[in-house]
């Protein structure tokens, strides 16, 4: 919320050009709940603030914030997962190619890429890239998600689809590029958060969660 008084204006909270990498978020004020942040990006800001504060605590991150809308919270989490999966894609860029993984498989399950008019048998890296891009497109599609502060029923039906497809990215990395997966997971704790998220909001069947040992 703006606090424009006659006093000198406060330091603006944005990443101005010229800021150093470690100072990027220094001007950011910590808020106690999404209500304190100005709409419509309050949930996204709050989630990113939580992740910066405690990245390794999945339960705290997936818990619905005080006075928060659980549906919007799930939406923002899905957006954040798509965002952070960029790191996994970059890590897999050199490892996963159409020679090493010509099909999208995860431990005997094979998947067809749904980002095309007819499901196509993309190679694993293509599948990952298309899936994440397709999820971005869907999450930004005003037909399904016209608002950032409230979710309608067509929106909620998409959560399960998106979660299921994103899970396959993790599964493929786990079963076929284990070293990369472990390294990435140790740095970002993304998979732990993803599983906690799915289980809490019941977006996938338990038996489709392929990665058993954690």
């Amino acid at each position: 919320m703006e606090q424009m008084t006659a006093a000198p204006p406060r330091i603006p909270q944005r990443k101005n050009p010229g800021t150093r990498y470690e100072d990027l978020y220094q001007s950011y004020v910590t808020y106690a709940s999404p209500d304190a942040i100005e709409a419509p990006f309050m949930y996204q800001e709050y989630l990113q603030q939580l992740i910066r504060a405690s990245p390794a605590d999945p339960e705290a991150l997936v818990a619905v914030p005080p006075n928060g809308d659980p549906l919007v919270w799930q939406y923002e989490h899905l957006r954040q997962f798509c965002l952070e999966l960029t790191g996994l894609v970059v890590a897999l860029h050199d490892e996963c190619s159409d020679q090493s993984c010509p099909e999208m498989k995860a431990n005997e399950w094979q998947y067809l890429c749904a980002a095309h008019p007819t499901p196509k048998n993309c190679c694993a890296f293509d599948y990952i890239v298309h899936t994440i891009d397709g999820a971005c497109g869907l999450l930004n599609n005003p037909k399904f998600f016209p608002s950032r502060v409230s979710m309608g029923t067509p929106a909620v039906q998409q959560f399960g689809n998106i979660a299921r497809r994103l899970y396959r990215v993790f599964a493929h990395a786990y079963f076929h590029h284990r070293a990369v997966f472990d390294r990435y997971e140790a740095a970002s704790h993304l998979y732990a958060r993803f599983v906690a998220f799915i289980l809490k909001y019941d977006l996938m069947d338990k038996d489709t969660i392929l990665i058993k040992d954690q």
Partner: protein
Amino acid sequence: MNSTPSSLMARTASSEQQPTLSLPRVLHFLQTEWRRFELERNEWEIERAEMQAKINLLEGERRGLESVKSDLVKRIKMLEYALRAERVKNAKVAPAAPVPASQAKSTSPSKTPAAATDPNTTIPLLDVPSRPVTTDLNVPTLRTRSSALSLRARGAQTQQSRDLLRAFLREASALSAQLVNDVDAPPELPHAPPQRDSKAPTVEAAADGLGFGDRGPQSVTFESLPADAGPLESTRTVSPSGSLEELVERNESRSGRSTEFASMARRIRRFQSALVPSHESATTTSVRPENGVDDSEADTPASTGTPSSSLFWRPRLQLQHHLDAVRMVEFHPTDPLLASASEDGTVKLWNLPSRARRDVEPYLTLRASAAPLLSVAFDVTGEFLFSGAADALITVWKVTENRLPYSSYDKRIRLTHFDGHTDAVWDLKAHPSEPFLASCSADGTVRLWDTRLKPVPLEAIYQLPDFTAAPTSLAFLVTDPSKLMVSYRDGTLAQFDLATQQPIFTLRTHAHPIYDFGQPLIPPPPATPTYDPSQINRVVTHSVANLVATVHDDRTARFFDPVAGTCIHAMTAHTDAVAAAQFHPNGLVLVTGGHDCSMRVWDVGSRACLQEWPAHRRRRDAGIWSVRCAPDGGGGLVSAGADGVVRVYES
């Protein structure tokens, strides 16, 4: 008769058993018939009026289509002529263009009605005597079509051929217009010197005149491009449709090239179907002061003759695919391609559709690092794309020809990365003519890289001695590309000589107090290590003149003279910090975007605000991060916002 009325009635009734005539009956019949006739006549009158109205409407439509068609024919002819000229030039043979020029001159303009169906002849327009230049038809249409056509011929022609084409197109329209006014001038071959494409119609027509000799009284004066960018004289507009058709008619009657008829007809139909809507929209939006009519779109009563009032932007597309704030957008130098770099760590490449569509998806997403991406730039040739990230990584990507979404990801497009910076790379700029890339980073240095993929790409490092503030933005001086303007976080503006790596001058600017209407002056907050209100967010250079503009966090925009090294003007531009600016390629306006979520268009000469509109949603004190104008001088404008949306405007 001594009968009661009843008996009379009875008798008349009995007499009516047979169809005999009786006076009341006849009268009644006549009356009903008359009424019926009147009704029918009214109906016929109404129907006739309707038909008349419909006829008028169709007539009007047909006239419009005729003019469009003649336009298109003209373009096609120009292209063909230019192609022939190119072939001739390449083959080094005497020009083979058939020249019924003398015939064209000699035959008197026949005033045949505009019923020319398919003018399938080629007009060798170069040899028709060139009369004084007058402004041509709808220039926005001209530009969109010429740019569309130039894109088709891109593979075959170089930049100069394109310029040649534009000159020919202008001349074609000028020639069509000249049939109305009859001033003689010695014919000359228009040689089109390489010149910047500009939006103003007068600049176009005038640049055309560079190839003309002396002209009549209504000519446009135009000094050479770098020297003067002041307002140009306006010229008359001429209605094109009638004159061109006459020209075409005459030529059609003279020379027939049946071999090209069918292809021409097909092309005309295609162009017509594709461009009629744009033609109509262009007619509604194009405002030219020479017309003196239809200033409904003009925002300010700018002096007649300054074409800047003709630029009025409307939203066209909203590109929503990023998951976090978009920091920078860039246009491809030649193709309708857009690159957007976002804090979500991706660069997305978008194909700009020719007409507005609802859901536009990027055809490619580039991921180089998990850190936020802060800057993006295209190489001057358009072959390479550079992205700068917050973790100091500059990645070089290849721009592919295959631009279909969700195609197989080709890993070879990630060519290399430039190592050297140790902190976030905030701005990347490609040299306007040489294969160099300049980057500035929060580690305090500006580095120049050679983009020809050498083993050691680093060319030079530019740094102010004993200086701690980080550079925020770069701009090459267009008038003198060996000089680089750099802006810093503490409000310093420096100019470096690329060769000697020494600063030529440094200017220190200070934060202005903040003025809110009705409030006392608020002094700017003191500078802290992480925030300085005098910070210059972006420095941009004018496309033609020696002018540099900077936009600051203290809401001001300032203009500098890069040669003298002085500040010319400072003005409050927005109601919050200004972060984005760009001079329009025609050199007449400066577009700025601020964190108050408004975009403003400023006239360079008068520094008046020509247009203002709200854009983007504010996200944690950030509104608009980047603004770009289309490099071909057309009406394209793009803004990148902190809400993750890229908005495209057209004028």
